[in-house]
Every structure is written in C-alpha cells, then in structure tokens.
C-alpha cells in the first residue's frame, strides 16, 4: 500500500466517529495494540519531550525502506505515534520526505488537540521526516 492509501484507510476508520471521545477511543486502542519500541531505543536520544508525555521514536533502514517504532508513556500520544508509524513505516526515505500527512487534519486531530498535544504531534512528524532525510543522505 502507498502512504496515501494508508492515510485514506485511517480517514475511513474515523469517518463514522462523530463524538470526539469515540475518536479518542480509536486512537487509544491503536496505541494499546502497538508493539512499542525495543528497550535499546528507550534512551534520551530517541525521546521527544512534550509537556507531560514522553514519546520515543526510532527508525531502522531495512532493504532500502524505513521501519519506524514509537511508544509513549501516555496512551493518547502513543496512539497518535502508532498511527504515524502505520502510515510511514515500510517506505523509502524519499517517499517519506515527499509525504503530505493530510490524514492528521482530515480526522480532526489538528483542531481537536490542545496546543501542547498538537505541538507534540508535530514534533513526532518532524522527527520521523528527519530520520528519512538522514537515511537519504547516508544512501548518497
């Protein structure tokens, strides 16, 4: 599946959830079903500090594609991180760099998250893209 196809899937999942608490439930469930990150990646280098949440993000290049891992000590941020991993994992650095993450706005995440959470989410997206840039530079 392409990045956009995965985004469209997520948008479809959220489409019939009107109540924001139902959307939160969906996000929480995604986070809870995620594998998280390998223990070796739970270091300060991989930490994206939000105000009250800790999020660890790691990336490995496997056969020219980036595999992301993400985990949070809070369930809502963890769910958001899991969705980003779902969308971006398994693609080339270039595909990730070029990706327009429109699902975030379309499922209402941008307007319904508090400024702190929204900033935290932007920080995660930025970190994942930075990994892609770094891997691309490595590839030469």
């Amino acid at each position: 599946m392409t990045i956009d196809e995965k985004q469209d899937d997520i948008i479809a999942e959220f489409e019939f959830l009107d109540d924001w608490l139902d959307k939160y439930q969906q996000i929480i469930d995604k986070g809870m079903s995620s594998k998280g990150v390998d223990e070796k990646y739970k270091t300060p280098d991989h930490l994206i500090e939000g105000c009250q949440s800790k999020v660890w993000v790691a990336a490995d290049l496997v056969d020219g594609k980036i595999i992301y891992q993400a985990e949070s000590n809070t369930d809502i941020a963890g769910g958001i991180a899991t969705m980003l991993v779902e969308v971006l994992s398994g693609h080339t650095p270039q595909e990730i760099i070029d990706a327009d993450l429109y699902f975030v706005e379309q499922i209402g995440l941008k307007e319904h998250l508090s400024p702190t959470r929204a900033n935290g989410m932007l920080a995660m997206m930025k970190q994942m893209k930075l990994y892609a840039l770094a891997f691309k530079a490595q590839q030469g």
Partner: protein
Amino acid sequence: MIDIQKIRADFPILSEKVYGKPLVYFDNAATTQKPRQVVEKIEEGYYKRNANIHRGVHFLSQEATEAHEAAREEVRAFINAKSTNEIIFTRGTTEAINLVASSFGELLQEGDEIIVSHMEHHSNIVPWQMLGLRKGTVLKVIPFDEKGVLKIDELDKLISPKTKLISCTQVANSLGTVNPVKEIIAKAHAHGIPVLVDGAQSVPHIKVDMQELDADFFVFSGHKIYGPTGIGALYGKEEWLEKIPPYQGGGEMIDKVTFEKTTYAALPFKFEAGTPDFIGSTALAEALRYVNAIGIENIAAHEHMLLEYAHEKLEQFDNIRFIGESPNKSGLVSFLLGTVHPYDLGSILDKLGIAVRTGHHCAQPVMDAFGIEGTVRASFAIYNTKEEIDIFIAGVERAKKMFRQ
C-alpha cells in the same frame, strides 16, 4: 444555610459550555472564578476612580488613594493583623516569598540555615535555593510520611543554632494536607526562630488570624480567593518589616532622594516600589467582602462536604490510588487511576467539560517522594456542587473503560 445556586448565579463563567457540555470547574487550587461583584469593582475603578495614588492633589487621585488604602485595611481585618503597616501588597504569593527571601535574606550569612517542608510548592523552595547561591545559606527539609503527613518530630532534629527561618505551607497544594503550623511556630519561637507561613491554599478555605497564629510572615494570592490575578499580600510583623531592608527600589518607597543619599518611606510603603495595582487591590477587597458575606466557616463546611463526597465516590474504583491521605485535609483530592497516565485521564475529563489539573502541580519533590510523575487533582470552591462531583465520577468511570482498566 447557604444557597449554593444563588452563589453560582454570581459567577457568569459557570454557565459557559465547554465542547458543548456544561463546565465543571475543579481547578480552583490553580485559580478561582470571579463573582460579578469583583469584576464590577474593576470596571468601576477604571471608569470612575482611575488615577495614580499617593501624594496626588486632585480629586480622582485622592479617591483612588482612599480606595486603595481602604483595601489594605480590608486585608488587615480579614487576616486580623494588628496594623495596616504589616500589610504589603504584592503581585501574589510567589512575589511575597521572593520579597522575604531577598530582604530577610540580606541579614543572613554563609552557613545560616533555612528549613522548609518536603511538600512545598516550588515558589516556597526556589527563592530559598537562589538565596543559597547568593549568600551560601543552607536549605534543610522536613520530610513527610507515606500518607503525606508532615513528620513534625523531625523538625526538632533539623533545628540548629544556625537556623534562621522556617518557611512552611499551611495547606499543601498537591496533597491537600493541612499542616500543624501553630505547633511549628511554637517550636520555632522557643528557639527564637521566625516562621513564614504560605497561606495561598489556606486563606480560601480556612479562617486565618495573624494574632492567634503568631506567624512572623504570612503570604497569599488574591486570585485563589475569588479575587483578580496580579495582586496578593505579604503580612509581616512590624518588628520584622522594620528590621529588613527594602526589596525593590524606585518611586513610592522613598522619603528623600538625592544622588548622595536616599532615605526610605515608612511602612508599608517601604516595600511597595512603583505604582501599585490600585484597581486590583479594591477588587481583592471586594472578594474578601464576598467571602465574609458567606462566612469562611460556611465555605469550609461546604468544601469539607464536597471533599468527603468526592473521596467516597472515588474509593469505589478498585484501582484508585490517593496521593495525600492526611486525616486533616482541605480543598482538594489528588489521585491516580490504575496505570492511566494523569495527562490522559485529564484529557478525557476535559472533553467532558470537566476541568482538573494534571502533572506535578509545581511540587516535583512531592511527586518524586511518591515515585510518580504526577497526579490528577480536583480542587473545590464554594460554587461547586455534589452534582458536579457526580458528573466528574461518571467521567472517571468513562475514562476507566476507555483505557481498558
């Protein structure tokens, strides 16, 4: 019998909707909502009485001065200080403590000791640490037990010939623990040691009486007792305020200024540099009048009922953990629900229109002592109701299901 619905009608913000749901405001320890009477006082001040105060020759200036000094007298009476010379207006509790740390701190030397408790708000820790860096003073800490009760016996071991001040909160903002400040003051005074009491979380909930308490310094914030932000007070015994040097320099706190020598104004103005918040002070006075009209004992009784009810309802959750279980508590309940992160629980409650506070509540040492990152804190005021607690409990119930606990 107080009429809570009548009181609620005085607070326009309580009719606001949050995400389409009625606001349930349980973040009063952070700041309280304001009754119409307080807001109208501010409006009246700016529309009818706005002029710089003290030494003004014109009518408006005299009106403004009278109102500001009448407000000072209102504060004096509210806390039963002996004299208005003992009431210094500040921006709030934090500024008041910084004032004492700076001015009283001037008298101290390297190696002198300050004692605080482990349950202090950062505002009653950091100024003393900064004093330590400036003057080489040492900070010692009275511990608390697993219930959040101060280990008052430890105080005797901490007091030494070098102890120069004890600074302690009357009610801990993260735990709700009411401390035995009279006992602390008695122990301190037996050794000739003065005491600063942080009244930020006690003044809204408990009757305070400076002459009965015998504290040397007492601080509180207007915005936590239905008054505006930006104004609070430092009470200091006249003997101490005479002894310690001024805090900030500038206009209003002087007597004579030449480039060769400047002399300072008498109390209380010695500690009030620059134009004060002379509108805010009158609004603070109005808030204190509002509290007096209800009766602080009635407020205490109502809030006690709410606290007991909240406790009883939260206890029904099998995975509830209370942080702060002193038998003597005031105004708030701090808790954790299973392994749900407080930020997550607070976020769900928020979407249900319920305002609580999550995190360390500016008391990181307290959280460290319990080995946690933070708590969810629900804190009450006179306008809160049992029905609101029911909504809150339903919210916690919903969150529990959402986080599969």
